[in-house]
């Protein structure tokens, strides 16, 4: 079976998983949550296989490279990393509500990669500048970081949603009553941000090592580099506020959203500004 077919299947599976998480949230029965996790795991397994098949196929075509080199492949890997990170968090926290906000982002990434008009899913030959192992490590670490920030974003959203009801003193009811405790969300926002920050730091570093070998300059202030630094600084500010000024709760949640907006701009928005990284445009 061709990997593109499996990947379309994966897109569908993630959608199903999202709907099941949503059912679980609304209806509160454990069954839906378990079914949702099952689909998420199944999707992850399928996607892993598809990525390996694509990798193998690139060798069969005589091009031989990791499937992490153009915009399409990075989008697919982003979705993979989101689900992977999310499922680990789910295993650790036993909490299935966060999936309602995180899994659809992976679904959207998969859907966008397959339907966006100017995204090509062909396995393309690698131009000399991209033939570097540092590039592979760079992409993997950056996207693991982005995935952790996505989880922080999902938790931040739930936090704010749940926080809206805090004003009224009545017993929490309806949907919001089923959301996890604010304190748990707060910890999760902090932990996934810290994890993402470490990955992003390594990602920026491996990126500059690659630039050092490819262009002779570890930092050239192209817009993508600058925006990754902006994102890094936003999260650094957030972590300082937490550690030094004890910032908690709603403001951390809002910063998690701001940081995620920066992540998205670094990944997608910057391609509309000119620069070295514009090869990522297809």
């Amino acid at each position, binding site marked *: 079976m061709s990997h593109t077919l499996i990947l379309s299947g994966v897109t569908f599976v993630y959608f199903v998983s999202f709907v099941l998480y949503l059912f679980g949230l609304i209806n509160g029965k454990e069954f839906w949550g378990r079914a949702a996790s099952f689909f998420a795991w199944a999707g992850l397994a399928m996607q892993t296989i598809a990525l390996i098949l694509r990798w193998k196929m690139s060798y069969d075509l005589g091009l031989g490279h990791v499937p992490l080199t153009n915009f399409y492949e990075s989008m697919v890997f982003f979705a993979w990393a989101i689900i992977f990170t999310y499922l680990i968090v789910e295993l650790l926290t036993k909490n299935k509500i966060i999936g309602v906000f995180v899994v659809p982002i992976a679904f959207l990434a998969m859907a966008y990669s397959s339907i966006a008009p100017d995204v090509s899913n062909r396995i393309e030959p690698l131009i*000399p500048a991209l033939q570097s192992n540092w590039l592979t490590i760079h992409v993997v670490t950056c996207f693991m970081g982005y995935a952790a920030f996505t989880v922080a974003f999902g938790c931040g959203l739930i936090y704010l949603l749940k926080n809206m009801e805090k004003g009224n003193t009545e017993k929490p009811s309806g949907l919001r009553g089923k959301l996890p405790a604010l304190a748990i969300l707060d910890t999760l926002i902090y932990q996934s941000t810290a994890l993402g920050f470490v990955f992003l730091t390594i990602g920026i*570093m491996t990126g500059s090592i690659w630039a050092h070998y490819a262009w002779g300059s570890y930092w050239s202030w192209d817009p993508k580099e600058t925006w990754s630094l902006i994102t890094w600084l936003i999260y650094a500010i957030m972590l300082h506020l937490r550690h030094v000024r004890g910032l908690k709760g709603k403001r951390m949640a809002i910063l998690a959203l701001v940081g995620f907006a920066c992540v998205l701009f670094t990944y997608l928005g910057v391609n509309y*500004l000119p620069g070295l990284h514009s090869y990522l445009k297809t």
Partner: protein
Amino acid sequence: MSLKKNTLWSFFSSVKLTIVLLIIIVFVFIAATFIPPHIVQAFTGQLSPGVAELFLLLRLSDLYHSFLFYLLMTILSINLIICSINRFPSLWRQYKAPNFPEPAGIFDNLPQSQIIIVGKDSSQIKQIIKSCLKKNYGSTKEVDTGKGYLFYSERCRFSLFGVYIVHLSILVIIVGAIIGSIFGLEADINIKEGESVNVANLSQYNAIHKLDFSVRCDKFIIEYYEDGTPKTYRSDLSFIKNGQVAKQGTLLVNNPLTFDNYRFYQSRYGTAPDIKAIVTYTNIGKKGGSLTLAVGDSFDLPDSNAKGSVLRMENNIMQMGPAIKLRIISPKKDIQFWVFKHIDKIKKMNSNLLTEVPMFNPGLFHPFVFSIDRMEQTYYTGLHIVRDPGVSLVALGGLLMVAGLIIVFFMAYQRFWVRLEQLGTKNIISIVGLSNRNDQQLQDKIDCLCRRIQEEIKA
């Protein structure tokens, strides 16, 4: 102490300042990525001359190298250094804090889950506690408090300095970047195949930099994938110092070469305007030969008194492919004619060609017949040359930062005390812990320890 009262000192020792600075830097970056340079230039043009001069002086048109940005980085560095100095004494106290007696009051109001009451022999229980702590944390210390025993274990005390490592790494990177920008150099050179060059054009200024060695390009090769995408750019280089080849190597994109503190990068390539033709000739009954010719070259034809020269050389003339124009002078004749590479094909399309246009006859100088074996283009390779003595510091800073962050976020400093007291026939075991962060993880560890001790006692 008087230092701490100094207002300037306290201004620089505030973390609020750090956060404000970081936010300002974020806005400077956003401005720098969103405002295209040509708009800045147009804007500078409209300013009154005095203001425009100031604008240029502060280099606001290039925010990353502007006075404003340097100022922000300077304040940030001072801020970072002073914060670090300020906090060091309390950190050191924390690092040196004695394990015994335990911090006052930590055994008060313990939840039930952290207290174990058993009736066994206390010396046996002592052994159990010790072995559990040892198994979990490597080592343990104990004191006799008079009322019973107090045990202590800890993990990752050094992680108190994680923040220092992270902050130090930022300074190291900044210093490396400054060294690079002061003592570093970037230049470009183009070298034709077979030639050697010892001067380079500086990238930032309109000036020439002389190298005290020369670089020869022995060969430049491009390979393509089947679909025409470039696959490899490759230059074989020789570095010549004091008239001797000191180093030879293959330069590829993503695989720079280093010589004499300079790093060489494959950055461009091009074709030189001159081409070469490999020409062969036959001479009925005699030996033929092969010549490598460029425009203007002259050559002797053996077994005759003739001398030839190349007048023109074309890669593709009148859609008929490569051709060269030769002039041959012998005592009797002075003739000019064209030699086409694809003469057979051309003759097929027009069978009377050679009689109609004798000039197209490669055998016009009887009995010699010329043909073109192939044309060769000379490439030049474009190298980017960098000398950056700050790179190793920046790399060190990067390593330190990653190490520091891992210590800060994943290796919390945790301390555990276990108190064993006798109350009548019962032994009371109380377990507490302290950490410099992340209470959830600490609680998990305490619970785990409680469970372990309980299990061992039962066994």
